[in-house]
């Protein structure tokens, strides 16, 4: 079945079953491999993308449910204000190790920052605990989110 989806501002037509998870459309059909596969059950967050600016696990999101919504992936998140601040803070704090989970971490953190300019520890926990980092970079992820929040201007 053919579907039209808008990813990073571009409309693509893909011919897959309607229950095909968005993750595989992005990675295997469109060749956008920045979004990662980790568990296939929405348990690890590696596949996180934004659907209409909401952090969403693409591995459990059927393509037919996306409809006219705008999908944003790691490849384009740097073009948003929150995404750019998060990426910069990630580099500043030297967050990454193996890096495999970091696309998903950055997508979750960008969505958090876009909706909450100054998240506290509990809010960071709530937004980020769905993202597993096997290398254990949590301490730095927390620091980087706080740094990105500061760089967005004073708490108001």
């Amino acid at each position: 079945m053919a579907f039209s989806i808008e990813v990073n501002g571009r409309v693509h037509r893909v011919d897959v079953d309607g229950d095909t998870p968005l993750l595989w459309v992005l990675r295997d059909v469109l060749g956008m491999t920045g979004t990662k596969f980790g568990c296939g059950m929405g348990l690890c967050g590696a596949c996180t993308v934004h659907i209409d600016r909401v952090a969403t696990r693409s591995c459990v999101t059927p393509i037919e449910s996306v409809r006219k919504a705008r999908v944003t992936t790691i490849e384009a998140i740097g073009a948003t204000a929150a995404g750019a601040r998060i990426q910069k803070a990630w580099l500043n704090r030297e967050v990454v190790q193996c890096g495999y989970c970091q696309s998903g971490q950055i997508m979750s953190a960008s969505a958090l920052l876009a909706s909450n300019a100054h998240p506290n520890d509990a809010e960071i926990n709530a937004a980020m605990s769905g993202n597993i980092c096997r290398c254990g970079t949590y301490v730095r992820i927390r620091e980087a989110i706080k740094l990105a929040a500061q760089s967005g201007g004073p708490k108001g």
Partner: protein
Amino acid sequence: MVQDPRSSLMKATKGQSRAASGLSRRRFLQAGAAAGGGLLLGLHLPLAHDAAAAAKSDDFVPNAFIRIEADGRIVLIMPYVEMGQGTYTSIPMLIAEELEVDLQQVRLQHAPANEKHYANPLLGVQATGNSNAIRGAWQPLRQAGAVARTMLVSAAAKRWDVDPASCRAQSGEVLHAPTGRKIAYGDLAAEAARMPMPESVALKRPEDFKLIGKSARRLDAPAKVNGTAVYGIDARPTGGKVATLAQSPVFGGRVKSVDDAAAKAVNGVRQIVRLDDAVAVVADHMGAARKGLAALKIEWDDGPLANLTTEQIAGELEKATLSPGPVAQHIGDVDKAMAGANTKVEATYHVPFLAHAALEPMNCTVHVRKDSCEVWVGNQALARSQGAAAAVTGLPLDKVVVHNHVIGGGFGRRLESDGTTRAVQIAQHVDGPVKVVWTREEDIQHDMYRPYFVDRLSAGLDGNGKPVAWNHRFAGSSIIARYLPPAFKNGLDPDTTEGAIELPYAIPNFHVEYVRVEPPGIPTAFWRSVGPSHNVFVTESFVDELAAVAKQDPVAYRRSLLDRSPRAKAVLELAAERAGWGQPLPQGVGRGVALQFVFATYMTQIAEVEVAKDGALRVRRVVCAVDCGTVVNPDTVRAQIQGAIIFGITAALHGEITLKDGRVQQSNFHDYQMLRMDEAPAIEVYIIQNAEPPGGMGEAGTSAIVPAITNAIFAVTGKRLRTLPVDAAALKQAT
């Protein structure tokens, strides 16, 4: 694709290069002209587990190269892989330091898989593991940099017709100070290749280091924050299909029958591949492959292990600790000391099977052609992948090309080539390239596991509570015996016993035996912090038990045994001070300490653990003091320790693979849980800087945290946990 520089070195240097025998007891370096001009140095870097056997080799076989090109670029071709541990940043620092160039000038290429050229031929190991990249490269890479610098200076001095002593290297140029003349390295590289190699070079003194010891930006970070880093799972050769698979749920089982009608009817499914012990679904994309896999009806012949349980394996191991085994360490007279001891303490410990659960699931892309095979994979031991592909296809090694990729978590799992073997078996049935991606369920249920171990210990204490006798016998799998058979000697290997046979403490009578018992059919493998992942838990728990029997403070007790180990004492005292050891804590919170000397690194960790009335645990804070000798990249040391501690907490609180009916019972992150952001403690790392040779950093942090946690639980509840993971139910109401 990386050009193999070795052939050009051999050709170009014939008759003009010579080994710099004064630089080392063993020849390790060659210099000559690079293909296309420039200076090429070849050197040998030790790889994982090859120290013992390398000493046997008289033949010089370079496995790393430094190329200074005519345009001034410096390319380092090396066999170590990046899997998050920062090697791609810290290794170039060594060369840049002595070569007097900026870190940004050094470009890094991974050596192609080539057992003959990039690993010691006696070993067949081209691998990154055992925290030995910096340890192994520390001397040879700096010496190679100094040799290259000296040859560049000689070339400039010759051109200017001046005394080389009046010239010096700085920022990628040779400078003649009296006249202010300068020549860039690129302009000198071809002439430098014709200079004689110096017999000896002086390395910089630590106080003159410009790069080493200062935090450097990770060179791999930008591509990892914008989604452009290409992992093995991201390989997309033209025309490639995607496959996923089901392997026999019972180890050693086989496919009895397959009904694939429904799977073949799935839109996008192209082919079903049936192997003896696995079935794969080949499709246009992973979504279709997974849907096809779910639609397969496979009947399995479970084979002889159909009733295997963890309890059976544990029982066998426990029995094995009752009979003597090969002696791994023997100091003094333990029997006599034990007989004369004031108090005797005994304990038995169990540690479980553990999965690696790297976040990038196992995957490998393969294109089998009639007379060649191409492999795309992220692997810690590239040449093993190449060998595996050659073995399955029957092709000669030089017909197998392996493209290595960034690794989405290694932890020992990607030292293994079973994933390549499986992918090639499938690809042999597929026309064109096929990417075989394991589901998370397959990844966890067909891992090669950290072994289960059972440890039996006894100790004798004198009238002051000091240990005068220590007896330790343990049973479990030896990874080395399978992975590197020449290193398994007289029933012993250096990995399985690390952390058990050389404690930092002064114990006059000390005896350790290891009994190798391989669990039937359960594949075992190296797992982050390897031998110490098990041994440090056992020894540091038992030392804590001795302190408790002696009614002494755990830190004071340890300190009293460290008079002959000042570096161990220093990390213990620093951690205790920074953790506020002895200061009051809230109700339900306790502190635990662990001290270790493994991977040539001294480390103390102190964990603050909160135990709720319902037994729920939270690690609130971890303080770590480390002495890893010379620190190359301090920020990477901190990052590795922070991450290793999280990895260890996951193991202590959640990690356990169990078997029932011959099947692994865990399958995904709901039942094989990882520590998450809301459970992550505050972590403080304090580094003791000195000029000792560097110790390993990738793994050390994982082992110490586990006994620090269980010792803290003892401090707050009085319950001694001798089996991992921590059983929260058993702690209920214990406070």
